[in-house]
């Protein structure tokens, strides 16, 4: 029997420019030189894999596609081996919506995620970080992905949704099924979608008799322009989206940040000496190690940065690669911890700007502040291995650290 926890392997890539594959182990391990090679070849490259897929390699081409909802649809937002059927059962508005239905669906979700709303959540996140740190600080070593970065966003979003933080493992497994295994196995993808819908349906049912002050009740009580409640499929789709989008993305961003700081004592020391620089550092770490790659589907033929783009293909919309474009960012391949000008696209560009960007930023800032306060000295454990997630969201899934000053 095959091991279902591991994605099916694709044939290895030998020609990155004409046959790229973002699930290749080489990409997972170290994508940066690959992106440089692709960018040097063309602003838009193409692969026959995934039933045909383009990838813009420059910031300019990524921006052009993100802003062009006429030729590029969000109805499919993950590049997979197959093109799953489009139904309301697996739609997740507003991320899978195009204009004109996108805007009302998005506006509905925005108020609970403003910077002011996040300020109210900050003390809870700080407590979560401290509880986690207390759990390993005396051990002298830790897998920071398994014991720290993974739990902060999952517990924060569970808190906002009003579902038990103790169900975290369930959520993390669904995300793995949808974002990693689901790239190559549609059955696993649909199973996870159904399980999540069932889970949320039960929570919705509970709230019919006992309304709560959380995002589930908020969506149940939301009304559209005509004053009508949302379809159940819309509520379920948005809840699935909030859970999926809010977890391994920020988990990855916090993990990559700690990975960088573990390997870069100078940056670590600077942030400890100047904690007010942490918000600026967060932006640079988001740029250099952007976790999220999105996708679009070409619905109408067009030209991007001089390259013809044909309908029916997917587009791997790599915000991470855009953020490494040296034409946009001087010293793009270096982490400049106090970079002042930073129009990075880690949260996307255009109408699909990440709804949770203020939440993610707050979580990253608090997670780094608390970590550096309690664990000022740490480094990669040479006896351990750092592993990275594959596909749509990139971040460390094993992050073995030794804590304390090197002896």
């Amino acid at each position: 029997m095959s091991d279902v926890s591991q994605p099916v392997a694709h044939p290895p890539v030998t020609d990155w420019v004409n046959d790229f594959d973002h699930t290749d182990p080489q990409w997972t391990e170290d994508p940066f030189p690959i992106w440089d090679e692709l960018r040097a070849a063309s602003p838009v490259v193409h692969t026959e894999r995934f039933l045909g897929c383009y990838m813009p390699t420059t910031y300019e081409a990524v921006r052009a596609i993100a802003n062009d909802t006429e030729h590029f649809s969000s109805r499919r937002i993950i590049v997979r081996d197959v093109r799953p059927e489009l139904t309301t059962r697996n739609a997740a508005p507003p991320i899978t919506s195009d204009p004109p239905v996108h805007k009302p669906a998005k506006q509905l979700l925005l108020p609970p995620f403003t910077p002011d709303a996040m300020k109210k959540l900050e003390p809870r996140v700080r407590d979560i970080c401290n509880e986690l740190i207390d759990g390993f600080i005396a051990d002298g070593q830790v897998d920071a992905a398994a014991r720290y970065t993974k739990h902060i966003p999952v517990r924060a979003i569970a808190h906002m949704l009003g579902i038990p933080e103790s169900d975290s493992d369930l959520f993390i497994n669904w995300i793995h099924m949808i974002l990693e295994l689901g790239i190559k196995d549609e059955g696993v993808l649909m199973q996870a979608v159904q399980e999540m819908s069932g889970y949320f349906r039960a929570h919705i049912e509970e709230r019919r008799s006992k309304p709560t002050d959380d995002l589930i009740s908020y969506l149940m009580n939301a009304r559209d322009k005509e004053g009508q409640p949302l379809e159940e499929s819309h509520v379920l789709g948005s809840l699935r989206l909030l859970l999926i989008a809010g977890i391994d993305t920020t988990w990855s961003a916090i993990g990559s940040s700690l990975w960088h700081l573990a390997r870069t004592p100078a940056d670590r020391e600077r942030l400890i000496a100047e904690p007010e620089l942490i918000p600026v550092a967060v932006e640079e770490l988001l740029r250099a190690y952007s976790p999220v790659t999105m996708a679009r589907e070409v619905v109408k033929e067009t030209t991007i940065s001089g390259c013809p783009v044909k309908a029916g293909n997917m587009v791997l919309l790599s915000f991470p690669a855009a953020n490494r474009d040296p034409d946009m960012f001087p010293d793009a391949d270096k982490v400049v911890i106090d970079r002042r000008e930073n129009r990075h696209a880690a949260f996307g560009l255009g109408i699909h700007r990440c709804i949770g960007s203020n939440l993610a930023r707050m979580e990253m800032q608090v997670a780094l502040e608390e970590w550096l306060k309690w664990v000022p000295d740490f480094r990669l454990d040479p006896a351990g291995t750092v592993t990275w997630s594959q596909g749509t969201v990139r971040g460390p899934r094993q992050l073995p650290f030794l804590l304390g000053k090197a002896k």
Partner: protein
Amino acid sequence: MTARLRVHVDPDKCQGHARCKALAPELFELDEFGNAHEAGDGTVPPGLEDKAWLAKSNCPEIAIDVIEE
């Protein structure tokens, strides 16, 4: 003598990244959806000129204009 500055957010371009509000809270405000607009008529009080330019150069949507008057 330095010119007086005024900031303006193009509401059609702003997508609510809220970088301007984080970097120059005196010069920008957010609405209930988190989208930005300039505070008051956008006039930049003396001493905050650097923040105005900083907000402009960090807006991912290129939605901010700094006008020298």
